[in-house]
């Protein structure tokens, strides 16, 4: 096989089809960027879930004089009520062994002061205004409903807070984002496939004289297909590289520079996840370019 002829063919082909090639590159670029973002969004959801489900606990807040919960009667929770509540929690099958911690007003006040140490609000709050609570760890963080309903409404229980109630909408939103990105990426990739086969049809038409003679003198099918394959692979690679660059820029400016600074508590996707996503993007881009090229060239270069 004579590489220089093939390469010169490739150059001529790319030049002749420049606008179509650019269209293919741009489409692949955008679609792979979306695809990569969807991959990263999924990684992010997994990271957050792992992060939070680990620490997830149900907080059972007990009544104070001022609380208006269902189990409160306008008075502080009594020791008797506390014992009863603790017993209900401990005997519940979903509670993790040794999974119950009691937080006193003093402890609550300490962590409040820590959390808001720079805020003027600390000086206006007294220890007495804090709520006592039980913090419960679960055997299986996804099974929280049972315990919540068992405890809610017991005398002395003000409110039962479950972190999942707050996290699930967030995860749902992220999942929705991910599905949306995947669907648009899929549509764009379909468009890219069609553009590629269209480009090849045009290129095959433009080179029909050469192809006719090649077939006549017995050039192998692979030899005839190769310039088209290389053209498609090159376009896909350029598109994929742009998409990878876009993803890195996005991760750097949006996640590393912004989100990570603003929401330090959360774990964010980083270089490892981005690298993994870009690898998948390049492979997907190449596969999606090679398959339609093979099919279209087979169709238009029929021996």
């Amino acid at each position, binding site marked *: *096989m*004579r590489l220089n*002829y093939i390469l010169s063919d490739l150059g001529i082909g790319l030049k002749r089809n420049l606008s179509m090639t650019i269209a293919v590159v741009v489409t692949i670029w955008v679609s792979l960027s979306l695809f990569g973002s969807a991959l990263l969004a999924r990684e992010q959801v997994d990271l957050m879930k792992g992060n939070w489900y680990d620490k997830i606990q149900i907080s059972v807040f007990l009544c104070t004089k001022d609380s208006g919960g269902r189990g409160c009667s306008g008075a502080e929770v009594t020791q008797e009520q506390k014992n009863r509540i603790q017993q209900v929690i401990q005997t519940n099958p979903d509670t993790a062994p040794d999974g119950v911690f009691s937080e006193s007003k003093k402890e609550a006040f300490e962590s409040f002061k820590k959390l808001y140490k720079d805020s003027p609000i600390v000086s206006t709050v007294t220890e007495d205004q804090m709520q006592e609570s039980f913090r419960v760890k679960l055997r299986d963080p996804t099974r929280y409903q049972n315990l919540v309903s068992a405890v809610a409404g017991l005398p002395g229980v003000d409110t039962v807070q479950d972190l999942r109630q707050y996290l699930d909408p967030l995860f749902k939103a992220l999942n929705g984002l991910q599905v949306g990105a995947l669907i648009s990426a899929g549509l764009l990739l379909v468009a890219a496939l069609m553009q590629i086969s269209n480009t090849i049809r045009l290129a095959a038409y433009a080179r029909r*004289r*050469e192809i*006719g*003679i*090649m*077939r*006549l*003198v*017995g*050039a*192998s*099918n692979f*030899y*005839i297909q190769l310039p088209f394959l290389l053209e498609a692979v090159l376009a896909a690679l350029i598109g994929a590289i742009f998409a990878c660059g876009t993803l890195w820029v996005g991760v750097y400016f949006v996640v590393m520079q912004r989100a990570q600074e603003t929401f330090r508590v959360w774990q964010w996707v980083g270089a490892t996840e981005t690298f993994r996503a870009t690898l998948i993007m390049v492979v997907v881009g190449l596969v999606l370019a090679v398959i339609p090229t093979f099919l279209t060239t087979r169709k238009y270069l029929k*021996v």
Partner: protein
Amino acid sequence: MIRFENVSKTYEGQSKAALLNVNVEIEKGEFVFLVGTSGSGKSTFLRLVLREHRTTRGHIMVAGKDLNRLASWRIPQMRRQIGTVFQDFRLLPNKTVAENVAFALQVIGKPRAHIRKTVPEVLELVGLDGKEDRMPDELSGGEQQRVAIARAFVNRPMILIADEPTGNLDPGTSVGIMKLLDRINRTGTTVVMATHDVSIVDQMRKRVIELENGHVVRDESRGVYGYQH
């Protein structure tokens, strides 16, 4: 070299057969004229030899191989043993004479040293030495056809197929082309030429196969173009 055994060909979507029960045997080194009116089946005959189409019925043997049984990936190999020349030359307009001839060798992966040696040889054989660097549109029709013959012959095929090679040329130029084809035939290459050119067929006195409506109606060694009508 080429054998047709009860070959029929009906193109898709057509009721009338382009070839019907054709039995022909062409020996190695023969020179054969294929004559007949337009639509008589000459082009179909040549296309079937090149395996551009499959037969509807019957078998075609080329160089001992049954074309119907040839796997499609081996067709290119088979075609390397057949050179083809057309009425309209089919040169690449953006390549010089030498590049056009070299192209046929490049695309089948011949080494560059071989190409550098063979192309001038074959250009000399067809009488185009000194015109290697001309572009096709700078040449006369006869010269362009010589380039096409050089391209068809440069890989030393066993068979040369010529589909009306003189159809676009004036009589004087045609004689030159026929002399060239005759010289190629004398090197042992089997030549099959479809033509309408009465005077050429009558002058050469070679084997003539006449087709009419897809049938072989005449097969004469040392024949002439037609009966006296």
